[in-house]
């Protein structure tokens, strides 16, 4: 990939919104990779947590939005609990999801869910899932 860096993007409004919404400061991350090392789903992510954060640091929000990472993050907080700089990738992914959901784009349609699931699955899974994936 080739990217051009601009101050306007690095300090752009999307970045500021993500920081506000997540309560995280992107510059604090020093890219040690611990989050990606411990994240149980990073193996499936287009951009593992640390790399997603890296693109945000560079001001490249779209790269991260394009990736599946935020929809895979389960909020287990393993990343945060082991981050030496107390950065929570979970919070950042939440912020990105919110950004996306607030634009009214659902990640999961209820009617796509199998009936068997709705019958058997614990309520909490359904409630939680809807909160995370649906606007």
């Amino acid at each position, binding site marked *: 990939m080739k990217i051009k860096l601009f101050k306007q993007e690095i300090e752009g409004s999307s970045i500021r919104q993500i920081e*506000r*919404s*997540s*309560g995280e400061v992107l510059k604090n991350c020093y890219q040690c990779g611990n989050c990606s090392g411990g994240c*149980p*789903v990073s193996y*499936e992510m287009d951009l593992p947590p640390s790399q997603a954060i890296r693109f945000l640091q560079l001001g490249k929000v779209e790269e991260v939005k394009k990736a599946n990472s935020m*929809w*895979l993050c*389960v*909020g*287990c*907080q*393993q990343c*945060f*609990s082991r981050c030496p700089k107390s950065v*929570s990738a*979970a*919070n950042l*992914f*939440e*912020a990105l999801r*919110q950004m996306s959901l607030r634009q009214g784009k659902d*990640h*999961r349609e209820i009617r796509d*869910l199998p009936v068997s*699931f709705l019958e*058997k*699955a*614990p*309520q*909490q*899974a*359904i*409630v*939680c*899932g809807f*909160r*995370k*994936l649906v606007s």
Partner: protein
Amino acid sequence: MKIPYYPGCTLNTVAKGFDVSARESARALGFEMEELGQWNCCGASFPLSPDNLMGLTAPAKVLASAARMGDAVTTLCSVCYNVLKRTNKALRDDGEKRSVVTGFIEEEYDGSTEVIHFLEVLRDRVGFDRVRESVKRPLGGIRAAAYYGCMLLRPAGEVGIDRHEGPTIMEDLLSVLGCEPVDFPNKIECCGAHLAMTRTDVVERLSGNVLESAVDCGAEVVVTSCPLCQYNLEKSQAKVAERRAGYRHVPVVYFTQLLGIALGQSDEMAGLGENRWDVRPLLEAKGV
């Protein structure tokens, strides 16, 4: 002793055994779990964006309701525990948030109610020694792997019933009950949680890793504290069996079920029939 108790929606439906075995055990140990007079679903996820106050309202209502009954509220489900505890902290520490949220739910609440997990009640209020004395049917050295998952432990400093990297509270209880606790590397790893809705492949892999790791360490039964963990672990066994020749399903039970049995409850009361893989043959084999 009476303790206000928040069951949460799942324990009222698919995880009945979890609920009943706990209430009965409490009774056997000489205290009462007093269900909140009025409660709603906690939302099953703590809002990770600090600017999302909406997500705090549901748990705040639960807490306000609990405050009317006592100075503490106990829960069983790890997720409820996590959500209530974090919400409580947010309301206690952040005056601004508190006034917005309480204003919205039109109830007074200052964050002073303590949120404690049932395990903590047993350890800190009842005492494991008391539990030991009350055991009627020691569990015959059954090798039990305590699975904590995420929500009981993280984020450290906000929740955390025990050391967040090496908890032993559940093992300590299990050994009091006559089990032989099995330590295993994946005991604090995630089961896949709500991805059950979207990505069963991921859930099967994560939960499968938990199961395999426990079995490799010699577990005969896996013990949980969360209906979602329970569901994911049970559901994923088929996949593990598929990829691993000679794999034998392990029963997955709530810790309260084993507690109930040890305290002398009937199998029905402990809800053993609700589990997908029956733990009874194993107990019988151990002479329980």
